[in-house]
């Protein structure tokens, strides 16, 4: 039985990766990534601020934007397409459990995002090199790696919503979760003393549970205030636990619901 599940997991992962590789989002995302790097280059040239800081800030922002958008789009699409176009019906009629199917989808999605990440990182490294910054430091590479983890958390969120919602609702819900995740810690930190206690408790609770700023440390890698090993470990563990929780919830809900086209 375990062998059956593992085989199914491997096949679904491979198929998802292949489908995403053939998806038309891949190339536009890459072109957009290159465009952002070029814009970062221009912005650094024009800015009165330190050249390297602006280059990293704008570049990291573009990197984060492209990766998060693709993670949300692919995460929703890879599951919702199967549900709405009906391929899921044929696939689940085969000897394959619901949970291995969904986990396979997420793993395929993670591999596709990692491939996109590697491509964008390679483009970024070339620009860094052309601007005489040399090779990226281990801190900078780690910071970008943490950003990839953030993309995977978003991909898991999208997968979870798509496992029980239609495409449009799943997209909207994941986008909302992304915005909340980016803003929660900032809002919690800027609440005034006069804010009602209940509101403070709620906002701080959300910020503690759902904080996507945890994965954005590229600026600190440039400014020399890079977090230590312990803090990095906590951030990475937070990402891994979030992925685990989101995919587990998705598997439980998906296994209990009727499958098929909406």
């Amino acid at each position: 039985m375990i062998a059956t599940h593992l085989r199914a997991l491997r096949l679904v992962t491979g198929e998802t990766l292949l489908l995403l590789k053939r998806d038309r989002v891949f190339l536009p995302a890459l072109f957009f990534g290159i465009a952002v790097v070029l814009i970062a280059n221009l912005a650094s040239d024009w800015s009165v601020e330190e050249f390297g800081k602006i280059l990293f800030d704008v570049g990291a922002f573009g990197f984060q934007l492209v990766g998060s958008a693709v993670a949300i789009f692919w995460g929703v699409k890879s599951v919702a397409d199967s549900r709405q176009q009906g391929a899921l019906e044929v696939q689940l009629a085969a000897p394959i459990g619901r949970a291995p199917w969904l986990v396979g989808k997420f793993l395929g999605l993670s591999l596709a995002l990692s491939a996109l990440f590697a491509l964008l990182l390679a483009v970024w490294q070339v620009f860094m090199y052309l601007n005489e910054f040399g090779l990226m430091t281990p801190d900078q590479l780690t910071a970008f790696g943490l950003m990839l983890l953030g993309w995977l958390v978003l991909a898991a969120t999208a997968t979870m919503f798509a496992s029980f919602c239609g495409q449009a609702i799943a997209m909207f819900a994941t986008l909302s979760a992304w915005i909340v995740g980016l803003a929660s810690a900032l809002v919690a930190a800027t609440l005034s003393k006069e804010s009602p206690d209940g509101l403070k408790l709620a906002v701080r609770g959300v910020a503690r549970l759902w904080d996507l700023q945890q994965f954005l440390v590229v600026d600190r890698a440039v400014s020399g205030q890079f977090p230590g090993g312990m803090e990095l470990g906590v951030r990475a563990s937070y990402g891994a636990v979030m992925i685990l929780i989101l995919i587990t919830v998705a598997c439980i809900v998906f296994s209990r619901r009727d499958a098929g086209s909406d």
Partner: protein
Amino acid sequence: MSDALVLQSLRKVYKGDLLKKPQVALDGLSCRFPTGKVTGLLGHNGAGKTTAIRLVLGLVRPDQGLVEAFGAPLGIEARRLLGYMPEVNKLPAALTPAEILTRHLALFRPKGIESSAQRQAAVERSLAAVGLAGHAKKRIGHLSKGMARRLAWAQAVVHRPELLILDEPASGLDPAGRREMLRWIDEEKARGTSIVLCTHELSQVKQLCDELHILKQGRLVLSSLPVEGGTTGVAHLARATRHVVHVSGAEEAALTKVLIDAAGELSPWSGLAKDGFLSILSFASHAQAMAWITALTRRGFLVVRFADETFASDEELLPYFTVGGPV
């Protein structure tokens, strides 16, 4: 011989929400599908056929009841025995036919097709059998509807299932494609595969089915098989064997003239109907039908099929397809 598939007291209610009321899709459905036979599952739109099929495939959870295949509850492992062809083509458009079948075989791992070389050979054989040998590496999204149906058939049977579930298999096919599809189903039946045929087309039912179940509003209302004790409200469908000859492409007037001319030397036919390019002649006995086949062939008509059909006329069955008809 045990049954290939048994549905026991299946009940399924689709839960409503603020805008939709709960809907009873199946209301205590019990029926069986004998091994090695083609059993038709019929009913009006919304009768519960698709829900019944989805329950068998594990796509939908029953609120009550049990599905058994070959004497055991139908779990994930038992799905290896199943082949499924949905009504609408549901294959990922970005993959190729060869990729779809290869992955399908890797998932089912039928005996004798375990290595990748065996899988590749089986895929090539399967694609050649459905006339897609030259399209193995074409994206499914670029295939015509008819080609996609052929591929769906190939996917349903490539792993040699023991129980084949077909949902409107000939839907969307041209007349030649339909005929080919019916031939493939005949071949699977000859191989001993148990087949559940879900269709609206009575002509297909009469040509192919050995047994018949008709659903209405989520319940079994007519069956050619004896029903379990305690099940009420199910009428028994008596068999009325007739022997049919299908003549392809014949002008109706020319065929009628020949029939009238030959009627002096041969016993008369008992029915003549048209179905697209086909003229369907029915006879009271097997021997009469054989004599007419000889006579028609000698006169240059193309006889494409001969079968002994076992079910009632359209007029007897049609009332079961209307919501207000007999229950």
